[in-house]
Protein backbone atom coordinates (compact mmCIF):
# COMPACT_ATOMS: atom_id res chain seq x y z
CA UNK A 1 0.00 0.00 0.00
CA UNK A 2 0.99 3.53 -0.47
CA UNK A 3 2.34 4.33 2.97
CA UNK A 4 3.10 7.99 2.52
CA UNK A 5 -0.32 8.72 1.08
CA UNK A 6 -2.01 6.99 3.98
CA UNK A 7 0.17 8.85 6.41
CA UNK A 8 -0.62 12.11 4.71
CA UNK A 9 -4.33 11.48 4.90
CA UNK A 10 -3.95 10.54 8.52
CA UNK A 11 -2.07 13.69 9.39
CA UNK A 12 -4.61 15.71 7.47
CA UNK A 13 -7.44 14.15 9.37
CA UNK A 14 -5.85 14.71 12.75
CA UNK A 15 -5.11 18.30 11.90
CA UNK A 16 -8.64 18.89 10.68
CA UNK A 17 -10.06 17.45 13.89
CA UNK A 18 -7.83 19.85 15.73
CA UNK A 19 -9.22 22.73 13.74
CA UNK A 20 -12.81 21.73 14.34
CA UNK A 21 -12.32 21.05 18.02
CA UNK A 22 -10.06 23.99 18.77
CA UNK A 23 -11.53 26.28 21.32
CA UNK A 24 -8.79 28.75 20.96
CA UNK A 25 -7.14 30.31 17.96
CA UNK A 26 -3.74 28.83 18.73
CA UNK A 27 -5.08 25.28 18.89
CA UNK A 28 -6.74 25.87 15.53
CA UNK A 29 -3.41 27.04 14.19
CA UNK A 30 -1.76 23.84 15.41
CA UNK A 31 -4.34 21.90 13.45
CA UNK A 32 -3.64 23.92 10.32
CA UNK A 33 0.10 23.34 10.74
CA UNK A 34 -0.45 19.61 10.81
CA UNK A 35 -2.63 19.73 7.72
CA UNK A 36 0.08 21.54 5.84
CA UNK A 37 2.60 18.88 6.85
CA UNK A 38 0.28 16.36 5.30
CA UNK A 39 0.52 18.13 1.97
CA UNK A 40 4.31 18.13 2.29
CA UNK A 41 4.34 14.38 2.70
CA UNK A 42 2.49 13.97 -0.56
CA UNK A 43 4.99 16.16 -2.36
CA UNK A 44 7.89 14.24 -0.95
CA UNK A 45 6.47 10.85 -1.67
CA UNK A 46 6.38 11.37 -5.41
CA UNK A 47 9.60 10.42 -7.11
CA UNK A 48 10.26 13.79 -8.57
CA UNK A 49 12.64 16.64 -7.94
CA UNK A 50 10.33 18.42 -5.60
CA UNK A 51 12.71 19.63 -2.92
CA UNK A 52 12.38 23.21 -4.07
CA UNK A 53 8.61 23.05 -3.79
CA UNK A 54 8.85 21.58 -0.30
CA UNK A 55 11.22 24.28 0.88
CA UNK A 56 9.00 27.02 -0.55
CA UNK A 57 5.91 25.52 1.05
CA UNK A 58 7.59 25.41 4.45
CA UNK A 59 8.40 29.09 4.06
CA UNK A 60 4.90 30.07 2.92
CA UNK A 61 3.49 28.13 5.84
CA UNK A 62 5.74 29.93 8.30
CA UNK A 63 4.63 33.31 6.99
CA UNK A 64 0.98 32.39 7.31
CA UNK A 65 1.59 31.17 10.86
CA UNK A 66 3.24 34.45 11.75
CA UNK A 67 0.35 36.45 10.33
CA UNK A 68 -2.19 34.33 12.20
CA UNK A 69 -0.26 34.98 15.37
CA UNK A 70 -0.33 38.68 14.71
CA UNK A 71 -4.09 38.38 14.37
CA UNK A 72 -4.12 36.52 17.68
CA UNK A 73 -2.32 39.38 19.35
CA UNK A 74 -4.78 41.79 17.84
CA UNK A 75 -7.71 39.70 19.03
CA UNK A 76 -6.25 39.50 22.50
CA UNK A 77 -5.97 43.25 22.65
CA UNK A 78 -9.62 43.60 21.79
CA UNK A 79 -11.09 40.82 23.83
CA UNK A 80 -8.51 39.88 26.46
CA UNK A 81 -8.93 36.27 25.44
CA UNK A 82 -8.31 33.98 22.51
CA UNK A 83 -11.29 31.83 23.26
CA UNK A 84 -13.24 31.57 20.03
CA UNK A 85 -16.51 30.53 21.59
CA UNK A 86 -16.49 33.57 23.78
CA UNK A 87 -16.42 35.88 20.84
CA UNK A 88 -18.58 33.78 18.60
CA UNK A 89 -16.00 33.72 15.86
CA UNK A 90 -16.56 30.14 14.95
CA UNK A 91 -20.29 30.14 14.97
CA UNK A 92 -21.63 29.05 11.66
Amino acid at each position, binding site marked *: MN*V*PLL*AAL*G*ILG*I*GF*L*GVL*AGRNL*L*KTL*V*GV*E*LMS*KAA*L*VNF*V*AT*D*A*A*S*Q*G*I*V*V*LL*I*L*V*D*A*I*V*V*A*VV*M*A*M*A*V*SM*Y*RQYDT*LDLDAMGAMTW
Partner: protein
Amino acid sequence: MTSTVGVAALAATILCGLAAVGLRDMIWVVSALASSSLALAVFLFVEGMPYAAVFEATVAGGLVSVLFLLVISMTDDDYVEFVRGRTALLAVGAGAIFLGALGVVWQGLSTVTLSEGTDATEPFVEQFWAAHPLDVLLVTVLVFVGVLAISRLTTPIGPAETETGHADDPTQPDGVEAAETEEIA
Protein backbone atom coordinates in the same frame (compact mmCIF):
# COMPACT_ATOMS: atom_id res chain seq x y z
CA MET B 1 9.45 2.42 -1.60
CA THR B 2 9.77 4.14 1.69
CA SER B 3 12.51 2.88 3.95
CA THR B 4 11.87 1.58 7.43
CA VAL B 5 13.31 4.69 8.95
CA GLY B 6 11.00 6.72 6.80
CA VAL B 7 7.95 4.82 7.91
CA ALA B 8 9.03 5.16 11.51
CA ALA B 9 9.51 8.88 11.05
CA LEU B 10 6.04 9.20 9.56
CA ALA B 11 4.57 7.25 12.42
CA ALA B 12 6.32 9.54 14.89
CA THR B 13 4.96 12.55 13.02
CA ILE B 14 1.46 11.21 13.31
CA LEU B 15 1.75 10.34 16.98
CA CYS B 16 3.19 13.69 17.92
CA GLY B 17 0.47 15.31 15.85
CA LEU B 18 -2.16 13.43 17.81
CA ALA B 19 -0.59 14.63 20.99
CA ALA B 20 -0.47 18.20 19.75
CA VAL B 21 -4.16 18.16 18.95
CA GLY B 22 -5.29 16.24 21.99
CA LEU B 23 -3.36 17.82 24.80
CA ARG B 24 -4.74 20.75 26.71
CA ASP B 25 -1.69 22.41 28.16
CA MET B 26 -0.38 24.79 25.52
CA ILE B 27 3.24 24.31 26.41
CA TRP B 28 2.93 20.57 25.85
CA VAL B 29 1.01 21.20 22.67
CA VAL B 30 3.81 23.33 21.30
CA SER B 31 6.37 20.70 22.30
CA ALA B 32 4.35 18.03 20.56
CA LEU B 33 4.11 20.12 17.42
CA ALA B 34 7.86 20.75 17.47
CA SER B 35 8.50 17.04 17.87
CA SER B 36 6.17 16.34 14.98
CA SER B 37 8.15 18.77 12.87
CA LEU B 38 11.42 17.14 13.83
CA ALA B 39 10.03 13.74 12.97
CA LEU B 40 8.93 15.03 9.60
CA ALA B 41 12.38 16.52 9.11
CA VAL B 42 13.87 13.09 9.63
CA PHE B 43 11.46 11.73 7.03
CA LEU B 44 12.51 14.42 4.59
CA PHE B 45 16.16 13.67 5.19
CA VAL B 46 15.75 9.97 4.67
CA GLU B 47 13.79 10.55 1.50
CA GLY B 48 16.69 12.40 -0.01
CA MET B 49 15.80 15.99 0.72
CA PRO B 50 18.41 17.22 3.17
CA TYR B 51 17.82 20.89 2.60
CA ALA B 52 14.11 20.55 3.04
CA ALA B 53 14.82 18.61 6.21
CA VAL B 54 16.88 21.44 7.57
CA PHE B 55 14.21 23.97 6.71
CA GLU B 56 11.54 21.91 8.34
CA ALA B 57 13.55 21.46 11.49
CA THR B 58 14.64 25.06 11.85
CA VAL B 59 11.58 26.84 10.53
CA ALA B 60 8.68 24.61 11.44
CA GLY B 61 10.30 23.04 14.45
CA GLY B 62 12.29 25.91 15.84
CA LEU B 63 10.96 29.21 14.59
CA VAL B 64 7.28 28.35 14.75
CA SER B 65 7.67 26.99 18.28
CA VAL B 66 9.41 30.15 19.39
CA LEU B 67 6.64 32.23 17.82
CA PHE B 68 4.04 30.14 19.59
CA LEU B 69 5.72 30.62 22.93
CA LEU B 70 5.99 34.32 22.29
CA VAL B 71 2.32 34.66 21.49
CA ILE B 72 1.32 32.45 24.41
CA SER B 73 3.34 34.58 26.74
CA MET B 74 1.63 37.68 25.43
CA THR B 75 -1.88 36.38 25.46
CA ASP B 76 -2.42 33.70 28.03
CA ASP B 77 -2.20 34.90 31.58
CA ASP B 78 -1.41 31.46 32.91
CA TYR B 79 1.73 31.37 30.89
CA VAL B 80 3.07 34.83 31.19
CA GLU B 81 4.67 33.89 34.45
CA PHE B 82 5.66 30.47 33.21
CA VAL B 83 7.50 31.82 30.22
CA ARG B 84 9.04 34.77 32.00
CA GLY B 85 10.48 32.53 34.61
CA ARG B 86 11.94 30.16 32.11
CA THR B 87 13.05 32.47 29.36
CA ALA B 88 16.62 31.38 29.61
CA LEU B 89 15.69 27.73 29.45
CA LEU B 90 13.46 28.25 26.44
CA ALA B 91 16.08 30.27 24.67
CA VAL B 92 18.61 27.53 25.20
CA GLY B 93 16.15 24.93 23.96
CA ALA B 94 15.40 26.87 20.79
CA GLY B 95 19.10 27.49 20.26
CA ALA B 96 19.83 23.80 20.60
CA ILE B 97 17.31 22.93 17.96
CA PHE B 98 18.77 25.51 15.64
CA LEU B 99 22.32 24.33 16.16
CA GLY B 100 21.26 20.75 15.71
CA ALA B 101 19.71 21.66 12.41
CA LEU B 102 22.87 23.45 11.34
CA GLY B 103 24.76 20.28 12.10
CA VAL B 104 22.46 18.42 9.76
CA VAL B 105 23.15 20.93 7.04
CA TRP B 106 26.86 20.49 7.53
CA GLN B 107 26.48 16.77 7.22
CA GLY B 108 24.22 17.11 4.27
CA LEU B 109 26.52 19.37 2.38
CA SER B 110 29.37 16.99 2.69
CA THR B 111 27.87 13.58 2.27
CA VAL B 112 24.37 13.39 0.91
CA THR B 113 23.34 13.90 -2.68
CA LEU B 114 20.26 15.76 -3.66
CA SER B 115 17.04 14.13 -4.71
CA GLU B 116 17.22 11.67 -7.53
CA GLY B 117 17.61 12.72 -11.05
CA THR B 118 19.37 15.95 -10.38
CA ASP B 119 22.94 16.91 -10.88
CA ALA B 120 24.46 16.62 -7.45
CA THR B 121 27.45 18.74 -8.26
CA GLU B 122 25.47 21.92 -8.80
CA PRO B 123 25.04 24.05 -5.74
CA PHE B 124 21.62 23.70 -4.27
CA VAL B 125 20.90 27.38 -4.39
CA GLU B 126 21.40 27.59 -8.11
CA GLN B 127 19.27 24.57 -8.76
CA PHE B 128 16.60 25.92 -6.49
CA TRP B 129 16.49 29.18 -8.34
CA ALA B 130 16.64 27.65 -11.77
CA ALA B 131 13.79 25.26 -11.27
CA HIS B 132 11.15 27.82 -10.43
CA PRO B 133 12.43 31.37 -10.34
CA LEU B 134 9.04 33.03 -10.33
CA ASP B 135 7.94 31.05 -7.31
CA VAL B 136 11.06 32.02 -5.39
CA LEU B 137 10.45 35.65 -6.29
CA LEU B 138 6.83 35.46 -5.22
CA VAL B 139 7.69 33.84 -1.91
CA THR B 140 10.29 36.52 -1.25
CA VAL B 141 7.67 39.19 -1.87
CA LEU B 142 5.31 37.21 0.32
CA VAL B 143 7.77 37.45 3.19
CA PHE B 144 7.76 41.23 2.87
CA VAL B 145 3.99 41.34 2.60
CA GLY B 146 3.72 39.08 5.63
CA VAL B 147 5.87 41.46 7.63
CA LEU B 148 3.64 44.34 6.55
CA ALA B 149 0.54 42.42 7.55
CA ILE B 150 2.04 41.54 10.93
CA SER B 151 3.08 45.12 11.45
CA ARG B 152 -0.42 46.34 10.74
CA LEU B 153 -2.18 43.74 12.84
CA THR B 154 0.00 44.37 15.84
CA THR B 155 -0.32 48.14 15.70
CA PRO B 156 -1.22 49.28 19.16
CA ILE B 157 -4.58 50.93 19.49
CA GLY B 158 -4.29 53.64 22.06
CA PRO B 159 -5.67 57.12 22.52
CA ALA B 160 -2.95 58.50 20.33
CA GLU B 161 -3.66 56.17 17.47
CA THR B 162 -6.21 57.33 15.01
CA GLU B 163 -7.28 55.06 12.24
CA THR B 164 -10.33 57.11 11.74
CA GLY B 165 -11.85 58.73 8.79
CA HIS B 166 -12.22 55.72 6.67
CA ALA B 167 -15.13 55.91 4.33
CA ASP B 168 -17.94 54.85 6.54
CA ASP B 169 -16.81 55.25 10.06
CA PRO B 170 -15.11 58.48 11.02
CA THR B 171 -15.56 58.14 14.74
CA GLN B 172 -13.78 55.67 16.95
CA PRO B 173 -14.58 54.02 20.27
CA ASP B 174 -11.61 55.86 21.71
CA GLY B 175 -13.45 59.02 20.97
CA VAL B 176 -10.91 60.40 18.60
CA GLU B 177 -12.57 62.39 15.87
CA ALA B 178 -11.13 63.16 12.50
CA ALA B 179 -10.98 66.80 11.71
CA GLU B 180 -13.48 68.17 9.27
CA THR B 181 -11.20 68.93 6.40
CA GLU B 182 -13.01 68.05 3.25
CA GLU B 183 -14.22 70.39 0.59
CA ILE B 184 -17.53 70.25 -1.15
CA ALA B 185 -17.53 68.06 -4.22
